[in-house]
């Protein structure tokens, strides 16, 4: 009581409480909890990510081992990583459904255009989290998905090559890339996300919930209060979502493939499921038309999505009474789902190596002098130690230096 009085004398608690208890529109349903669920997932990702960072090391020589260590040796490690991994997938699904709900009820229409624009920017940030996050385990999938992703960026006109080099931190994927992606994933994007969420939420509260289109102007402020009624429903939704995620994290181990190998002849690169539609789309634009799949369609699609409130100024009624919007939305959803299914069912490539006329039978020739540029006695910094190398190291033997001397760097 004393604390409450202390705070009441210094802060506008009464006004804040009244604001929280403001009534929502009369007609509102469970779909209006999707935004809160997305917010919950963002916080869960931030929390699990912050804890994973306690053990993770963003360098090619340590990243894969660190993730293996988290998954296999740290108590609750597999569970925390599972929550983070499956939480990312859940985030994409929830954000997509939230966007569909907003389109379905025409909630993006005036005066809520800014709420929509910041929401679409948040969708881009969520995809950015996905792209930067899955390089971090430094396994085959991580490496090749990033190779392809950055190459896609490089096809953009004029600045493409420059953007790709900035993303990689050089000409190819390596230590600098991993360090960059880790910084983007854990510092840049979270700051951006929380900033955008702050603005998005401000607009949501400022303009109030849109409710379903069936609300008359009089019914816009005659529904249940936001707190505690709506908040309770949101919290129950969060509990159910967490229970599902926790169950998946407990019973479905997060995949970790072999350590990234830029020469692996047998690996068929595939992106995470939420980028499979793009993976599939790229197959259809050949030769000089390549740029249509890699740049034109994604860019135009995003610009149109951002400008949606200004392109569709029809009356605010449910989607099935807006034939053009209904057709466009249906085509987009069917295309994305269809391409995702096609991408997921892409057959693996089976090839037959050339038989060699020489006596040599092994398909791989080890060069006689493995690395011409390496001088005698020079230490080579390999990206990953094999288990045999770790176990076979005798006590006191120096496997590799963590630090190069100035002479070595020169």
């Amino acid at each position, binding site marked *: 009581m004393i604390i409450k009085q202390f705070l009441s004398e210094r802060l506008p608690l009464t006004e804040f409480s009244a604001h929280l208890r403001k009534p929502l529109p009369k007609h509102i349903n469970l779909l209006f909890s999707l935004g809160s669920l997305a917010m919950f997932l963002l916080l869960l990702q931030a929390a699990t990510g912050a804890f994973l960072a306690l053990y993770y090391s963003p360098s090619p020589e340590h990243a894969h081992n660190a993730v293996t260590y988290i998954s296999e040796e740290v108590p609750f490690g597999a569970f925390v990583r599972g929550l983070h991994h499956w939480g990312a997938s859940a985030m994409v699904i929830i954000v997509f459904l939230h966007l569909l709900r907003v389109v379905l009820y025409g909630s993006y229409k005036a005066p809520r255009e800014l709420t929509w624009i910041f929401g679409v920017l948040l969708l881009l940030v969520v995809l950015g989290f996905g792209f930067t996050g899955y390089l971090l385990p430094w396994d085959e999938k991580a490496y090749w998905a990033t190779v392809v992703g950055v190459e896609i960026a490089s096809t953009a006109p004029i600045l493409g090559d420059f953007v790709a080099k900035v993303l990689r931190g050089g000409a190819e994927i390596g230590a600098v890339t991993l360090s960059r992606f880790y910084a983007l994933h854990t510092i840049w994007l979270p700051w951006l996300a929380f900033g955008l969420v702050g603005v998005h939420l401000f607009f949501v509260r400022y303009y109030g919930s849109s409710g379903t289109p069936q609300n008359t102007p009089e019914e816009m402020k005659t529904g249940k209060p936001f707190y505690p009624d709506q908040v309770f429903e949101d919290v129950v939704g969060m509990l159910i979502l967490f229970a599902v995620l926790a169950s998946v994290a407990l019973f479905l181990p997060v995949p970790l493939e072999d350590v990234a190998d830029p020469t692996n*002849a047998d690996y068929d690169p595939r992106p995470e499921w939420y980028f499979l539609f793009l993976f599939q789309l790229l197959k259809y634009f050949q*030769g000089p038309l390549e740029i249509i799949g890699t740049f034109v369609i994604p860019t135009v699609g995003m610009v149109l999505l951002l400008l949606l409130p200004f392109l569709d100024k029809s009356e605010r009624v449910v989607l099935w009474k807006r034939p053009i919007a209904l057709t466009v939305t249906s085509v987009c959803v069917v295309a994305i789902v269809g391409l995702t299914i096609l991408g997921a069912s892409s057959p693996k490539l089976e090839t037959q190596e050339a038989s*060699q006329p020489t006596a040599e039978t092994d398909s791989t020739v080890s060069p006689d002098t493995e690395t011409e540029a390496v001088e005698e006695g020079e230490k080579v910094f390999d990206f990953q130690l094999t288990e045999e190398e770790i176990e076979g190291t005798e006590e006191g033997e120096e496997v590799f230096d963590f630090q190069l001397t100035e002479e070595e760097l020169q």
Partner: protein
Amino acid sequence: MEKQGNRRSFLEIATAFIGGVLSLAAGIPLIGFAISPAFKKGESKWVDLGLADRLKNSRFKKVDYTFTAKDGWVKATKKRSVYVTDAGAGEWNVFSRTCSHLGCLVRWDEKQESFLCPCHGAIFDQTGAVVAGPPPEPLQKLETKVEAGILYVKET
């Protein structure tokens, strides 16, 4: 009153100006810091694939090789993979395995006599030319030389 208004207008403009100067003074070096790797020029160098005799009569033979290169603050062992064909008369055809579409590794298929990409379905013929799929360019053919019996490729 008008004097007061002029003073306020001046303060608004001056505040915006100082804000702009501060943003530029901090922003330019920070942006330069972040994008500097894009301006570094890559170096090309000759890397050996082994004794030419050992690769004699090879036909689309997959050869993995390593070389050291500076990767940021580390001197890293980089791995590469190529297909080597002995074209006779001291000529060698060495193709990079990097697909010219989006960077996946192509594989030689003896049955189809073609290079196949496992990502987006690209097919290249024996000369590296695009036969099907999305790549806008042929496979990269690497420059070669033989010195002291050792086959070298130019790594770019």
